[in-house]
């Protein structure tokens, strides 16, 4: 067995990275294309042509109001990416800051951050979203906030765990010996060394954010009409399950492929960025 050493060479031979990357790219392209063009506007209601089977004009048919399903699917990708990116960014920025702080200072501060993140685990995203909805009414902001808050303790734990390992390394000891302060060491030594782990985690959390967004929109707590979202499309499809069962397939498949792609990409990145962390096969 040959051992490729450069990143592109190893990436080219890593099937889960390749498949995951291709699916993720497809998701991004779908969202990008839909910003400029869709076969039919997904907001056009065309009741006379409702519940049509796939055809040359409507590639995946039409829903109960005559919306073009393929166009809604494309625009729905934007929605998933929007929620995923903002929610994961909230979790990443706040969680990483808390985790790095906990690792750098130790003592009661570390204990407080860890207890806080234990506590946050008592509130899964759906519970937070339900409370926010009771408070603010349903909407996309709720789902972003709920998923974002849910991500904070996850990033805090991962960052703290990995950062503590870096703090124990010799080069950090050397930096301390020459008088660097904790903040400087965190920025120049600790964070760059945990970045690859955080990127992997972010990819996986992005996948889970897409799943949660779909669930919340399905329940009517997340994205509201007329903005197309995959979760809502499934809810609408369920109402037509006996008349138009095929409507339930495309949105679910889209969610599954997006999540599968990001998870595979995350697995691949984990193997490629940090061979020590590679899952033993």
């Amino acid at each position, binding site marked *: 067995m040959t051992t490729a050493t450069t990143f592109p060479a190893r990436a080219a031979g890593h099937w889960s990275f390749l498949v995951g990357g291709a699916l993720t790219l497809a998701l991004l392209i779908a969202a990008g294309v839909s910003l400029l063009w869709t076969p039919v506007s997904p907001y056009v209601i065309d009741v006379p042509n409702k519940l049509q089977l796939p055809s040359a004009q409507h590639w995946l048919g039409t829903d109960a109001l005559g919306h073009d399903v393929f166009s809604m699917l494309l625009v729905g990708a934007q929605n998933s990416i929007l929620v995923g990116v903002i929610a994961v960014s909230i979790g990443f920025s706040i969680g990483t800051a808390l985790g790095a702080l906990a690792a750098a200072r130790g003592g009661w501060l570390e204990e407080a951050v860890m*207890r806080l993140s*234990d*506590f946050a*685990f*008592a*509130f*899964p995203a*759906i*519970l937070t979203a*339900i*409370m*926010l*909805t*009771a*408070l603010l009414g349903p909407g996309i902001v709720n789902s972003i906030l709920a998923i974002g808050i849910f991500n904070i303790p996850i990033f805090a734990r991962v960052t703290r765990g990995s950062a503590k390992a870096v703090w124990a390394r010799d080069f950090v000891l050397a930096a301390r010996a020459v008088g660097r302060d904790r903040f400087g060491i965190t920025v120049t030594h600790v964070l760059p060394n945990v970045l690859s782990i955080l990127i992997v985690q972010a990819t996986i959390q992005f*996948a889970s954010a897409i*799943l949660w967004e*779909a*669930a919340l929109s*399905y*329940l*009517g*707590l997340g994205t509201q009409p007329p903005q197309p979202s995959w979760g809502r499309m*499934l809810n609408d*499809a*369920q109402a037509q*399950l*006996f008349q138009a*069962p095929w409507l*339930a397939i495309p*949105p*679910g498949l889209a*969610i*599954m*492929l997006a*999540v*599968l792609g990001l*998870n*595979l990409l995350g697995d691949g990145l984990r193997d490629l960025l940090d061979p020590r962390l590679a*899952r*033993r*096969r």
Partner: protein
Amino acid sequence: MSAFLLKRFASFLATLACASLVIFLVLEVLPGNAAEVILGPEAPPETVAALAKKLGVDRPPLARYLGWVEGMAEGDFGTSYAYGTPAAALIDQSLALTIPLALIAMALNTALGLALGIFAAARHNRFGDVAVMALSQIGIAIPSFWFAILLILLFAVGLGWLPAGGFPGWSAGLWPGLRALILPAVSLAIVQSAILARVTRSAVLDVLREDFVRTARAKGLSEGQALRRHVLRNALIPIVTIMGLQFSNLLVLTIVVENVFYLPGLGRLILNSIANRDVVVVRDVVMLLAAMVVAVNFVVDLLYAAIDPRLKLRDL
């Protein structure tokens, strides 16, 4: 042992107290008091004040918080604004569906996940392993509510073997009740078992590399004997951890899946309560679910101690 238990129990209670405070504060920010919400914006102020007094929402926040917590401790969950009945009765009814559903799903998940995970580890890097891992990657990516819809399409719309939704109630008999829970439980369990299979596989593989397993084989135990006597017990820690998380996940995911099947459990209760702005019930149900999640974590901690006595000592 008792010091360990006490410490864990104290943190369990502290977490519950914090959770109740957060839930109360978040829902307290709701604009307008409950009386205004119930009577609508056109109601005369005197009527609002009278109802507010009757509901007890004119009291200061601290008194209401303590009243709520004390009530719950005594089994009094307040009165639903929307139905005018005790919230405890509504919750009891819903739990009669949600708890069996979550338990059946958990049992299916455990059986399937452990079996597949051990199978994959035993066939490490051979066809069976690769197939199970590929399937589980797909399983993890499937939204459980979509899987539920697919099951309805196949078994209810297509084959007509099982109901597409609804619940006849346990008074209709055990079998009609269970029949209504089969598809919901399967849709919850399949996705979770994909996760459990992966964790089980890697936990078993980790232990298989340990020296004591080599010793066990060297003294003449067969692969199966070594697996049963030495590997599984040592692989249990990560497996129990993930199963605890999964049970909490299942409780929360029942909210979604109950809505797919129109089942009158906690999930439907809480969504209806949101639609009705029934703050008392929303608050109680969120608290109950959070408490169940915390309780499951507490039990997992206790199980750790039972599985691996070393953890107990390290903790003290």
